């Protein structure tokens, strides 16, 4: 954000200003107002379409570079869904693919300086996580009926322990969307905020080389985090889907 630094008193840190949601035109934010959220989500969608649609228009048997990347992403997520959630989870593949591509492109677009990171917002990640949670719960009950509750009844444990375990399992089940969403937003937000803090120190001439080095290092880590968090979110989605399709331990 351009409004940072020099406020007269020397070092000023506004590490969180980068996350402020602003309208693109006008001042007021209604639910339909085009904001920087709209802009960067739109760019993420465009990137997805560019890679997966325009990158594959050739339908070449010997793929071009972009088509190779698209096929790699396809194979990566397809295999993940098949291996982790089971063969019958393949019908959820487009859904999982949507989540993965949206998160991975949002994360990487967020790494562009001056950009806005949509996945750093709990509003976004909580919705993503709740979608998964609701899907898993609804599919679980539709597919297995009451047997879905066996997920909470650990038959391999001694009978006396089972009620206790059931409570623990139930709590952990409902904590899932919370951890699922906060893990993603928290990781992304923390990294970006730390970079901003280092950038604030760069105003001091003595410290600035160290600061720049630190920003570079953090940026490298953030590139890793951007992919790993998308991967973690996706694979957890697959793990939860497996619970819905094959409950029981």
């Amino acid at each position, binding site marked *: 954000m351009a409004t940072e630094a020099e406020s007269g008193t020397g070092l000023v840190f506004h590490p969180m200003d980068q996350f402020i949601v602003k309208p693109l035109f006008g001042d007021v934010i209604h639910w*339909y107002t085009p904001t920087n959220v709209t802009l960067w989500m739109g760019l993420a969608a465009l990137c997805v379409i560019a890679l*997966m649609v325009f990158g594959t228009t050739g339908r070449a048997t010997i793929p071009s570079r972009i088509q190779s990347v698209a096929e790699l992403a*396809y194979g990566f997520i397809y295999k993940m869904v098949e291996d982790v959630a089971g063969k019958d989870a393949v019908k959820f593949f487009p859904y999982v693919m949507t989540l993965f591509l*949206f998160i991975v492109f949002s994360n990487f677009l967020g790494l562009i300086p001056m950009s806005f990171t949509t996945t750093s917002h709990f*509003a976004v990640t909580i919705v993503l996580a709740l979608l998964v949670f609701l899907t898993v719960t609804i599919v679980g009950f539709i597919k297995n009926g009451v047997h879905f509750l066996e997920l909470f009844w650990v038959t391999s444990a001694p009978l006396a322990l089972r009620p206790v375990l059931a409570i623990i399992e139930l709590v952990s089940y409902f904590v899932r969307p919370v951890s699922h969403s906060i893990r993603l937003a928290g990781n992304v937000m923390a990294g970006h905020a730390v970079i901003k803090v280092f950038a604030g120190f760069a105003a001091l001439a003595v410290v600035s080389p160290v600061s720049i080095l630190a920003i570079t290092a953090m940026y490298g880590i953030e590139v890793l985090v951007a992919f790993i968090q998308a991967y973690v979110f996706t694979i957890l989605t697959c793990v939860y889907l497996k619970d819905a399709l094959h409950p029981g331990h």
Partner: protein
Amino acid sequence: MATTSPAADAAHGAVTAPGMPQLDFTTWGNQIFWLMVTLVVIYVVLSRIALPRIGAVLEDRQNTILKDLNTADDFKQRALEAEKAYDAALAAARAEAGRIAAQTRAAIQAEVDAAIARADVEIAERTAEGEAAIAAIRRSATDSIAQVATDTTEALVAALGGKADATEIAAAVAAQMKG
């Protein structure tokens, strides 16, 4: 740190608390709306266009590879058959060549044998002829010697003044030549 940035103030039209913009719930409705729009767009594009297309491309490639492998297998089979046929033809040709060689050898042998036999017969004939000629010559030589001896004896007897008796002389010569 106490005041928010001017941009933030302008954005919300009210003073927001410093801290996490993530917890400014006035923007949640907006974010969630645009998130749903984005997700629906991506989902529709992926499930309708991109994923079926990539799936088809991957399947095509798999089929092409399998087909190529099958074709290669076919060609290999045919190469093996061709090699077998070649080996068989070679063996047959070798056998045929051996047969022809043996035949030729036998024919030549027969010819040679016949020639040798003919030559033997001729040699025998010539030998017989030669022997006959030699015998004739020897005979005529003996006769000539007897004649010459008789004539010489007659002449000697006449020169010594005797009267030569032809019968005596012939008998004497014959007696001498026997010795």
